[in-house]
């Protein structure tokens, strides 16, 4: 993966389309600092931020809702409360690192209400929730802090239709709040339906930038398979 250059505006949903293995997940992980990168610059609101590890990204207001909820998104054996609190402990805990249960309760309950997370209670294990509600827990933990950019990597995979619609609504909500949304998906209809702009990736490179008005499934597929066609 190299020479990736992208800009994302506030209040915009930028879709990233492409086939499996096109390097979309790697791109989001590299931006987030999850995997080491050789070089690269990231600017947020015009200021350069150095991101070496996820904590740097989180502090800069750049967050990731990763692919594969159970593997990367949630501490499945821990409670919903602990999962939402985890990346927000800098707010919840005192400067000595002591957790303030009252503050924690406030933040967690607000998150649960904002996203209408359905569960037996905040003490329920994260893996006892439905896929859609698990996804909402992940999104809510990031929005409990003032995140400016939210990257979604295949957020609707393996969840039911009603929850999918809710995820779309959440993304549109974020857009209205002026948050930049980056949306990676393999499903062309949803990426066409929700994005403002679409980047198409193939073999670790961006092969085309499309305005949603000019994008159709055929056009996207053409650029998503560009590399392979060259070989033929």
């Amino acid at each position, binding site marked *: 993966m190299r020479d990736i250059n992208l800009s994302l505006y506030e209040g915009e949903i930028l879709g990233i389309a492409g086939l499996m293995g096109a390097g979309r997940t790697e791109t989001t992980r590299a931006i987030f600092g999850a995997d080491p990168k050789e070089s690269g610059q990231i600017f947020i609101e015009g200021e350069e931020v150095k991101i070496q590890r996820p904590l740097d990204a989180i502090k800069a207001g750049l967050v990731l809702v990763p692919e594969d909820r159970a*593997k990367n998104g949630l501490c499945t054996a*821990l*409670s919903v409360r602990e999962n939402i609190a985890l*990346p927000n402990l800098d707010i919840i805990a005192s400067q000595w690192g002591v*957790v303030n249960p009252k503050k924690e309760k406030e933040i967690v309950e607000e998150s649960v209400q904002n996203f209408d997370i359905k569960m037996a209670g905040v*003490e329920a294990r994260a893996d006892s929730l439905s896929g859609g509600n698990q996804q909402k827990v992940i999104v809510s933990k990031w929005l409990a802090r003032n995140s400016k950019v939210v990257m979604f990597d295949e957020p609707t995979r393996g969840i039911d239709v009603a929850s999918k619609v809710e995820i779309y609504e959440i993304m549109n909500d974020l857009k209205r709040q002026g948050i930049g949304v980056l949306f990676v998906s393999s499903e062309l209809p949803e990426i066409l339906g929700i994005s403002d702009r679409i980047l198409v990736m193939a073999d670790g490179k961006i092969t085309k930038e499309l305005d949603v008005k000019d994008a159709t499934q055929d056009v996207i597929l053409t650029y998503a398979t560009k590399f392979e066609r060259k070989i033929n």
Partner: protein
Amino acid sequence: MENKKKQGKLKRILAKRGMGQVITVTIGLVALVIVFALLNPYFLTGRNISNLLRQIAPTLLTGIGQSYVLITGNIDLSIGSVVGMSCMTSATLMTKGVNPWVAVLITYLACLLIGLLNGKLISKAKLPAFIATLGTMTIARGIAQIVNNNYNTDSIGEAAEGFMNFFYYGKTLGLFNTIWITIVIWLVFNFLLSRTRTGRHLYAVGSNMHAAHLSGVNISSTVTKAYLVSAFCSATVGLITTATSGMGTMDAGNGYELYAVAASVIGGVSTLGGQGILLGTVIGASVWGVLQNGLQFAGAPVAIRNIVIGVIVIITVLLDLVVRQNKKVGTGKVGTGKTTSIGLKHKA
């Protein structure tokens, strides 16, 4: 309404992580105590209880360290050797005329280095915990042997009387100092585990390392902290051992890592990581201690005691695995069942 609130509170306490097993094991512990008390009228005398508590202390201390490490999803096999290293280092220094408290300080630093090495080998060099700590286990035992040229030390002498009283023989407010030390260390580490950011990170890393990493948790420093706590606890037990016998013995602490595992898992700390509380470790160490002490009273030889403890550890770990597996199948199958309970909650 008031009643409902009360019920909710009770439910919340019960639902607290690992509380279920702690309660079950506590019932088992009480049963054991009753059986041994019926078998032997001296079992429940003040003197035996006091001795029993002092006997439990080393297992509980090493158990606290092992619990920390297990919660991060790792294991520490170097515990027993670090106890031996601490015992030999401190005793050797004292017989060479070093001030006992300076010796204590040097001993702690040396043992913490082993903890640091464990943590970095596992989190940075990505060695499996089992292999890394097996290596440091041998290294620490080697250090225990080499510090005094392959001999146990002579008596640490009268200059170390204050040290011996502080760690073992002295009493404060009617309780042996060893017990006070254990209580203080337990309180500190229990607070750290249950009420602080570091504690949350330990559980998160043990539950799902990838998710913890993507939530901004520093995996390496969290795992290293757990091993440092373990090394600190083991070092303390080594010092207690030196104070007890008044000399350094090279094979001190032999097998303690397994007693520490026993105390942890009997008390509900899962070997799979992310679960358990230090209250459980207290109960687990007590079960271990009562069994040792009670069987000793009943005239069982050491060999039998070892076999009993081993069997109990295997059974508890097996139960833990079975219960966890069932839970997983359960949540997978009854996804819709959960939704019904949510419907009810919404109405209320």
